[in-house]
């Protein structure tokens, strides 16, 4: 693991007028690592992720992908660098069908530059079947699909292409239990493939089950970055709410080790 991290964000700033939405945040992500990003609404975590996905330009700071400095001016730049995002809103065009959404902005074309709908349908059928075998109505506009199916399209779009980094913004917020389990399984699978994942979530249970590390933001600042076995849920809650660890905190795994000794 001596290679450069997959993603390094160094001293990222984002100001809206006088408000510092992201205030000098540095964060990194390695291959095959799942990092949970937590914080209140408005703590700046979505803002930070939008900067990484190219949807928002930072006011300052530097982003490096595998050691190389990059600058994203639009979402396409980030996608070309292998950064895919599953937005909380899913970012689907409701009037288009599943294949059209899956390939939106990256349409497959025939030799003559026409849309190759047949190839897109075929590819969509394969990737969607992998995530949800019951997904059959591919020709319907996505507005008529269930929340779970829509989520599956958004996920498929993020993993179909050559993905190195995956940003998941509240991926399970709109899902039922079985679909949540599917997403959890998928995250483990992708981690095993060496993909780095930022998981933005409010669900402490998910975070502790899936993440290797938690990063907590509070009022635009980064207030804590801990390996998951160092902290308890209460510690993380304290970071989220107060912006600091409990006064008597000591690393959970070390404490346990000490007790065993």
């Amino acid at each position, binding site marked *: 693991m001596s290679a450069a991290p997959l993603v390094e964000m160094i001293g990222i700033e984002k100001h809206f007028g006088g408000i510092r939405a992201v205030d000098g945040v540095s964060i990194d992500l390695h291959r095959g690592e799942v990092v949970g990003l937590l914080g209140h609404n408005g703590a700046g975590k979505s803002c930070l992720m939008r900067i990484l996905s190219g949807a928002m330009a930072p006011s300052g700071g530097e982003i490096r992908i595998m050691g190389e400095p990059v600058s994203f001016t639009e979402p396409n730049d980030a996608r070309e660098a292998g950064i895919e995002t599953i937005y909380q809103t899913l*970012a689907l*065009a409701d*009037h*288009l069908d599943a294949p059209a959404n899956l390939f939106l*902005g990256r349409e497959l074309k025939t030799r003559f530059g026409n849309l190759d709908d047949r190839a897109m349908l075929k590819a969509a059928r394969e990737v969607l079947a992998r995530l949800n075998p019951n997904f059959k109505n591919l020709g*319907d506009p996505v*507005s008529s699909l269930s929340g779970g199916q829509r989520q599956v399209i958004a996920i498929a779009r993020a993993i179909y292409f050559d993905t190195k980094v995956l940003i998941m913004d509240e991926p399970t917020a709109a899902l039922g239990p079985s679909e949540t389990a599917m997403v959890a399984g998928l995250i483990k699978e992708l981690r095993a493939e060496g993909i780095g994942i930022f998981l933005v979530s409010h669900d402490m249970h998910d975070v502790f089950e899936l993440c290797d590390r938690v990063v907590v933001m509070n009022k635009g600042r980064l207030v804590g970055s801990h390996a998951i076995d160092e902290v308890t849920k209460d510690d993380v809650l304290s970071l989220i709410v107060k912006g600091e660890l409990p006064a008597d905190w000591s690393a959970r795994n070390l404490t346990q080790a000490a007790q065993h000794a």
Partner: protein
Amino acid sequence: MSDASKPASEFGLSGMIPAGVSLHRLSALLTLCLLIAGFALSSPAFFSINNGLTILLQTSVIGLLGIGMTLVIVTGGIDLSVGSVLALSGVVSAMAVKAGVPVVPAMGAGVAAGAACGAFNGLVITKLRIPPFVATLGMMLIARGLALQLTGAIPISGLGEAFGLLGNGALFRVVEMRPNGFPNVIFPGIPYPAILLLIVAVAVAYLLRRRQIGRHIFATGSNEEAARLSGVRVDRTKLYAYTMSGALAGLAGNVLMSRLITAQPSEGVMAELDAIAAAVIGGASLSGGVGTISGTMIGAFIIGILRNGLNMAGVSAFIQQIVIGFVVIGAVWIDQIRNRP
């Protein structure tokens, strides 16, 4: 399994939206047939080849405007400037002819002027972030004012026979000379404007359905933010739609002025409403993401036939306005019903 359940769901609530779109177009087509049948019964002259060709001619202008309008409406916008841009383009072409430019490049200049107005609209909307309604309302005044200022509000006439060819010529026109020296028109031919409309309609329909830009136009109108996050260059897509709308308005202006062989700076007032009505009657949704060229063509013919039929039935121009007004409200009302959850 899903194939078996599909027809059933078409009629169910979940299938309402896709079924609703085709239903809308079907009802428009039915309206068109009813109109034709009704007018044919009320006036024997209505259902003749000559009148059919007249309708084709009259509809070609609304149709060209409607096609451009459809592109804009599908992106979720609106273009109120097409009537004025039509006038300005015709005036530019006529002035070029008067300045000694041959007809074809002169008309090209007119269409280019229309495209430039459309591009201006697109830039104002995307760069200055001004809502399409306001931006194109401004262009409506600017283009009309320019057309009036350039001509001093005086029509430009005496443009020569070649200028009238696009609007008055016809393909496959068969004329034989009678022994008494008078011409006898056996078949009046297919008017060039109708052929132009067909070509443009097929080309734009192809663009919308089979090309990437068409898909991006739908995506932009469906969910602009989603399209942007998916890597669609939303601003460029909108710019394209407004430029096309302007260029097609320019083309329509040239067809119209060519038919009159006179450039009228006051021509095309309220034409934008006909174009919007054609698109909406044809199933385009003013909230974006929905619309077809075939639907707009049906809508354009409904308006063209309504105008023509009312004329043939001797209904006054004032009453015609009232009728078309109700038709526009009715069409938008249907759009509202369709979008209600």
